[in-house]
């Protein structure tokens, strides 16, 4: 994709702008309470919007069967993340689960 540089530079400028914004504007602008509250929900919303299709869609169709190894490995990862709260460990267990499930031919 040739647009990658455009994406990075525009994304970088926007990100810097947001980091700089209120340090620069201090005293001239107050973050509204509703926005402050809404910002807490950005990570769970955006990440779930990526995770769900990755685990549950196969070629664009919903696949909730036990043959969907990505869904099963994803569930293993969710439990691991819940119990361990460790990023690296969760990734390793999830990868191992997918590898094993595919290898077993489930």
């Amino acid at each position, binding site marked *: *994709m040739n647009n*990658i*540089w455009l*994406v*990075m*530079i525009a*994304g*970088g400028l*926007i*990100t*810097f702008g*947001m*980091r*700089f*914004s*209120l*340090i*620069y*504007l*201090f*005293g001239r602008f107050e*973050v509204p309470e*509703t926005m*402050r*509250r*809404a*910002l*807490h*929900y*950005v*990570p*769970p*919303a*955006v*990440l*779930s*919007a*990526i*995770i*769900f*299709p*990755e*685990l549950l*869609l196969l070629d*664009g169709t919903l696949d909730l069967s036990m043959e969907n190894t*990505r869904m099963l490995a*994803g569930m293993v*990862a*969710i439990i691991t*993340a*819940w119990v361990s*709260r460790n*990023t*690296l460990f*969760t*990734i390793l267990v*999830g*990868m191992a689960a*997918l590898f094993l499930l*595919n290898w077993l031919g489930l």
Partner: protein
Amino acid sequence: MSEARRNFLEGIRAETPLLIGVFPFGMIYGALAVNAGLSNTAAQMMSSILFAGSSQFITAQLVAEGAPALVIILTIAVINLRHMLYSASLAPHLKNLTLKWKVILSYFLTDEAYAPSILQYEKEGLQTYKHWFLLGAGFSLWFIWQTSTAIGVFLGASLPDDLPLDFALPLTFIAMIVPVLKKQPMIAAALSAGITALIAHPLPFKLGLILAALVGIAVGTLLESRYKQEAE
């Protein structure tokens, strides 16, 4: 030792435990970005141009899926909106600095630099050289992020093709998100965004992603307001 230097080193020291966690993360990013089809240069440069972990992972993912540039840029903006909160929160502590200092510190203002700095500032109160603390935390994180990305890019090119490496991305996101899901509005935000993403998936230009994110944010915010009202 000068007061500035002491604050700078203290910032690095406070950042060190976080650096240990960030290092493998940077390596995973580097390896995934290359596997997602980014050139080595682009993958490396993203770590200094964007310098924001989760949005770099998502950018790599969306590039691999062939999402249009505008959608990726919008997504980066939504994900990084939280930096405005950090900016607001640190602003009173940095108000007397020159513009040059404000620009430099803003560039280094990541989740991991913000967290120890705001804790330090709230503990120590107003001191003349404390911006050096944020610089120490931010710069050491930047340095480790660039180094670990480079190692990841280097290793990523040599990984076997049959490893389901693309699956590491959703796994990374799961690892990031699950520990945050403690209260009902958070869980509702995640579920509603996920289900919307499934339904809206056929929409062109990956617009389903942005729609789903907005639905999740709205659901979480509205539920939280309702709980607050009931509690009062």
